[in-house]
């Protein structure tokens, strides 16, 4: 395959291994490698900066989000600070929001929150890492705002009409994290144990945490 026959690039190719093999190396892998080489050679990006950014990305994990939620469940003062100013509160836990600010929205008996970004795929990456594929998909971006309850059902989440569904379109400078309700049957659990039941999808607001 030459680099200009993009049309033959298959999107359902097997996932390549880490050892470059020309038959396994896809068009966009080659492109990423070429971009990296040129940007470093031209002095636009330093190898150090690139390594730092790669390491930061690899260090991101939804587990950190789970720790935030579990602490909010077990520490009412922290919860107040988190809802008041999410950016500042997560700094206490060594987490940074970068250029954006964090808004934490709380699920209650009356309100369920869910997050989408219809314009691109804004997501609290500095906390949770890269968003899942479904969050970036046209299906989710198009439908979450117009038929959130149908979308929630596809994730197995059925909510009664007595509960308000509040969709947040993350379209500008804020990033969002849902503070779910602590599930029944988890009273007295430690923060560490609680953190384990908080999934990434629960913090986006498409599922509810299960004990």
């Amino acid at each position, binding site marked *: 395959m030459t*680099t200009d026959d993009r049309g033959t690039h298959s*999107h359902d190719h097997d996932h390549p291994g*880490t050892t470059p093999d020309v038959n396994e190396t896809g068009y966009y892998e080659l492109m990423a490698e*070429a971009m*990296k*080489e040129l940007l470093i050679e031209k002095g636009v990006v330093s190898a150090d900066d690139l390594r730092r950014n790669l390491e930061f990305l*690899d260090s991101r994990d939804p587990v950190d989000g789970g720790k935030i939620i579990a602490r909010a469940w077990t520490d009412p003062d922290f919860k107040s600070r988190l809802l008041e100013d999410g950016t500042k509160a997560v700094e206490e836990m060594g987490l940074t929001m970068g250029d954006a600010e964090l808004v934490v929205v709380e699920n209650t008996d009356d309100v369920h929150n869910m997050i989408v970004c219809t314009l691109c795929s804004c997501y609290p990456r500095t906390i949770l890492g890269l968003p899942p594929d479904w969050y970036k998909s046209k*299906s989710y*971006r*198009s439908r979450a705002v117009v038929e959130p309850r149908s979308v929630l059902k596809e994730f197995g989440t059925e909510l009664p009409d007595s509960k308000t569904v509040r969709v947040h379109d993350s379209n500008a400078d804020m990033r969002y994290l849902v503070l779910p309700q602590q599930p029944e049957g988890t009273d007295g659990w430690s923060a560490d144990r609680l953190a384990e039941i908080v999934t990434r999808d629960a913090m986006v607001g498409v599922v509810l945490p299960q004990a």
Partner: protein
Amino acid sequence: MNQRQHDMGGMDAGPIESSAHDAEPWAKMITSLAAAMRDDDIMRIDELRRALEDLPPDIYSQDYFERWSEAMINLLEEKGIWTRNEVMGRMDAIKAKLEG
């Protein structure tokens, strides 16, 4: 005043496929290059979004990191950092090296 391709709220679309799939190493590379250039104000996220929105529809509808790569090539060409031909040439060189 048509709804543009990236501005998807309310568009018709099919069911959500929620299978898990980790970003491949090259996708993380693209993300990290973008982050490094953002830190140095060489390429702002708003500029990258603009370049994404202006992609031809067949490219915009590709995988997220594929369209990021394409938009970065266009934007950095606009900024005089490289030309698309230069990137394509380097891809051919890397490929030739892999073929040994």
